[in-house]
């Protein structure tokens, strides 16, 4: 008989348990309650969301469609307020009572706030500018607020605090981490390792760390202005993030009369003590006295519960989890398992310490068995140590081999040695067996297996291991996911090799590349545009332009719109125009009955809805150069008023913007390049969120930011350098753009490129010329500048027959509304 299953908590454990039950074809009608108004998302990935390396869509595990497809009733945004175990009902915040036959409680934890004066605001909950770091809403609020502020304090030096501090660096310029204990991550690391980590965090990341820092008070009346420590120190700041620990969400359960100690007390079947039909999993559950705050144990619990409740294996039992963590804390490798200090005199301690490199390793061995290990700065041995720790196998005599690769290849565990049920992906609970299963059912590429099993789709640290297992399961045949590393899908080479081959054979046209470099000479429509851009960059005026290699936008020098018409955006350097130009634009717009005249986000005038065949005549009437609003190229330089007129301006941003645009107009690249120059840090031209943004600061200096974005991605640019003159800005702009042009992947915007290479490395190359290529970059960009021709000049002599002939079908297209 179909039973009614109710699940309280739609977080990682609740949803995972339901997935496991569905996978076992459990005969239930499922109703879920979650007080967050969303489907189910990967809470772990909030760190990545904060750091700007993941989008909101990217962190959802199950969207709303999943629930309906599986016949699950989801009450999102509804809180359960009481459980009536006698009548088998749950009462929710809407006043509805829902009956159940079986109940699962997976309410997780909340973020704990240590006692501090002034942390709460009677009206708002937290004081304005103070955030917890637990939910999607917390993260959104934090990003929104931090964006407009400069200095952040994070309270809590555990894993979460470190992640928060690292993520906040993406939004503010100054981050201080306060930790009440003597060293960072004191639960996972011994003091020496904690200090090593601190040195790395401070030195490599520029996060200031203060230990033994008890925060006693939040300062500020309407919003945060600082925090005060027990010793009286005041740290000024405008954002505070509290990551001081978590407490299980058990109040409602305790109030309903169920057994709660530190967490909800469960037995080995995850059944709440003394209850026949109520279960609990996840962070809220207390099993054999232990609470777990990581996801790996939750997956084990979910499996046991599902086996038991569906009758698949009524005796399935959870015996607790041995905790090990292997992660990148703020970019630094850290692994920890078991004990962090010896407990008996007989415990053997093996330590290796190399402070200069930030490498530290400690093993604790009891009776030849690994009972604890801490690694900082080098995780190459983590997987084999975790395995030894989990299994409790006897260790080899040669202890050094445990922490170093002595001879032999520098490998980790070999897949052959791993047990079938060894968990490879700890985020998604995928075993070696599951990966091998996917391979044997036909998935031969790493990305295919990842899609199918979700292995490696959490924090991603296990990807190399997943790759090795796929290779091994495939009989050692490396079926690399071909296209993954290629520059374009149709030519089997990554960018550097492709460029080398193009140079070697002097391939100057797109079809020459296909003919020479693709086995069988197969042409590929989807690769043409990327190749055209690359060749143009490499050969400048020697490039053999084949028009069919261009996207339609670049064939007719306008942006194609949803109804097949185009938009015309004349150049307007730095956003500056004249009455005469405005008149001309207005007259052209009237003459051609342009349906919409609009200012673009880049301070240009856009004439929208122009039929292709009218483009040449309009360009002639306008008699202005192309404004490049359509190409993967240098687009515009947005400017603010600057020192000419603005009361605050300290630099002539308008003149500099015009000069930059004049020089680099039309420069093509792997993605579009939007720039801005602003006359003071008030940033009216939004230079902090541009591919390259320039900010005038006092003393005649200019700051250059790179890698910013305010589109589908939002990212504050990284400070490349500060220079003394406009000439230096222009020069470094060209050098940076050229470095980007040569090294970015096709369609990789600077907001992805800059973090991938790392701002420090880019600074070394572009500013300090550590690689000795600055001169070459300058020369290459100069050559590109010299090859510039205004494409709108093609109006007089079309390059191909019928270049501007309409392709519009006679059928009625989706009409874009015309505004009066």
């Amino acid at each position, binding site marked *: 008989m179909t039973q009614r299953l109710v699940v309280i908590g739609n977080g990682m454990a609740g949803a995972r348990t339901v997935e496991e039950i569905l996978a076992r074809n459990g005969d239930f009608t499922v109703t879920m309650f979650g007080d967050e108004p969303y489907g189910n998302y990967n809470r772990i990935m909030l760190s990545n969301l904060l750091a700007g390396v993941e989008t909101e869509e990217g962190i959802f595990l199950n969207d709303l469609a999943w629930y309906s497809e599986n016949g699950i009733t989801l009450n999102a945004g509804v809180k359960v307020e009481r459980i009536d175990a006698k009548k088998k009902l749950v009462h929710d915040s809407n006043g509805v009572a829902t009956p159940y036959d079986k109940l699962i409680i997976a309410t997780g934890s909340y973020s704990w706030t240590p006692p501090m004066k002034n942390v709460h605001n009677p009206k708002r909950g937290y004081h304005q500018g103070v955030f917890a770091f637990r939910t999607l809403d917390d993260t959104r609020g934090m990003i929104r607020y931090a964006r407009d502020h400069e200095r952040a304090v994070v309270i809590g030096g555990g894993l979460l605090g470190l992640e928060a501090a690292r993520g906040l660096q993406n939004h503010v310029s100054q981050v201080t981490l306060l930790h009440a204990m003597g060293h960072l991550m004191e639960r996972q690391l011994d003091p020496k390792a904690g200090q090593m980590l601190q040195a790395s965090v401070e030195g490599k990341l520029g996060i200031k760390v203060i230990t033994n820092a008890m925060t006693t008070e939040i300062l500020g009346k309407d919003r945060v202005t600082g925090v005060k420590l027990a010793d009286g120190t005041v740290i000024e700041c405008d954002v505070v993030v509290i990551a001081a620990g978590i407490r299980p969400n058990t109040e409602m359960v305790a109030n309903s009369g169920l057994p709660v100690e530190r967490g909800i007390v469960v037995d080995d079947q995850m059944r709440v003590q003394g209850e026949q039909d109520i279960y609990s999993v996840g962070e809220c559950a207390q099993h054999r006295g232990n609470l777990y705050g990581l996801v790996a144990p939750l997956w084990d619990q979910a499996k046991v519960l599902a086996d038991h409740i569906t009758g698949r294996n009524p005796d399935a039992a959870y015996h607790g989890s041995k905790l090990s963590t292997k992660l990148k804390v703020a970019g630094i490798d850290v692994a920890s398992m078991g004990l962090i200090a010896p407990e008996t005199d007989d415990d053997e301690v093996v330590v290796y310490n190399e402070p200069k490199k930030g490498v530290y390793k400690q093993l604790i061995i009891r009776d030849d068995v690994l009972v604890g290990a801490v690694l900082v700065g080098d995780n190459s041995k983590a997987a084999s140590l975790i395995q030894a720790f989990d299994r409790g196998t006897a260790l080899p005599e040669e202890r050094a081999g445990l922490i170093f690769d002595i001879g032999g290849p520098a490998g980790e565990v070999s897949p052959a040695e791993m047990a079938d049920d060894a968990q490879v992906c700890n985020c998604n609970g995928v075993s070696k067996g599951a990966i091998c299963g996917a391979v044997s059912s036909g998935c031969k590429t790493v990305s295919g297996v990842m899609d199918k099993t979700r292995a490696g789709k959490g924090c991603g640290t296990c990807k190399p291991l997943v790759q090795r297992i796929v290779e091994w399961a495939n009989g050692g045949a490396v079926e690399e996911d071909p296209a993954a590393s290629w520059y374009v899908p*149709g030519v089997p080479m990554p960018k550097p090799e492709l460029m080398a081959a193009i140079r070697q054979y002097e391939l100057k046209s797109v*079809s020459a590349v296909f003919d020479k470099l693709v086995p069988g000479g*197969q*042409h*590929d*429509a*989807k690769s*043409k*545009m990327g190749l055209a851009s690359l060749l143009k960059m490499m050969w400048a005026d020697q490039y053999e332009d*084949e*028009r*069919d*290699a261009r*996207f*339609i936008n670049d*064939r007719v020098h306008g942006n*194609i719109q*949803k*109804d*097949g018409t185009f938009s015309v955006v004349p150049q307007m350097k730095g956003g500056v125009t004249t009455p005469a130009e405005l008149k001309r634009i207005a007259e052209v717009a009237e003459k051609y009955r342009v349906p919409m005249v609009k200012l673009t986000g880049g301070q240009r005038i856009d004439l929208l809805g122009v039929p292709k065949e009218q483009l040449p005549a309009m360009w002639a009437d306008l008699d202005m150069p192309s404004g490049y609003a359509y190409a993967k190229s240098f687009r515009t330089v947005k400017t603010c008023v600057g020192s000419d007129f603005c009361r605050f301006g300290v630099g002539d941003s308008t003149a500099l913007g015009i000069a930059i645009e004049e020089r680099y107009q039309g420069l093509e690249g792997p993605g579009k390049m939007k720039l801005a120059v602003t006359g003071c840090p008030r940033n009216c031209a939004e230079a902090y969120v541009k591919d390259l943004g320039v900010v005038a600061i006092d003393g005649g200096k200019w700051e250059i930011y790179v890698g910013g974005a305010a589109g589908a991605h939002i990212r504050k640019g990284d400070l490349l350098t500060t220079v003394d003159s406009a000439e230096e800005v222009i020069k470094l702009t060209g050098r940076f753009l050229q470095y980007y042009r040569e090294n970015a992947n096709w369609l990789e915007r600077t907001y992805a490129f800059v973090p991938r290479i790392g701002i420090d490395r880019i600074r070394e190359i572009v500013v300090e010329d550590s690689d000795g290529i600055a001169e070459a970059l300058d020369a290459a960009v100069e050559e590109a500048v010299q090859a510039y021709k205004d494409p709108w000049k093609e109006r007089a002599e079309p390059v*191909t*027959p*019928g270049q501007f*002939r*309409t*392709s*519009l*079908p*006679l*059928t009625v*297209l*989706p009409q874009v509304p015309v505004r009066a």
Partner: protein
Amino acid sequence: MTITTASSTPTVLGPVADIPLGEGRTYAVDGDMIAVFRLRDGSLRAVSAVCPHKGGPLADGQIDNSIVVCPLHLFAWDLATGCSQSGQAPIDVYPVREDDGQILLGE
């Protein structure tokens, strides 16, 4: 796949040289709009000019020797069979050939 014949006798659309290598142009034939492409290997293909997805102008799309990619949302269709490579409706395919430098549409 649908093969439709525009008319029983072939229609002359104009000189092949009107279509640059690797590009397409649209022709109106008996009230239908037909996109004719000249592949880089020199052969011709003719398909319906209207993208079945959202009406995009297929002749503005990029091609290789087998597919056309619609310029609006980048879905792709096989130029020989009209089949979509991305789960969309197929496009109509018309017989087309070159005769004495002219494009002939129809059997």
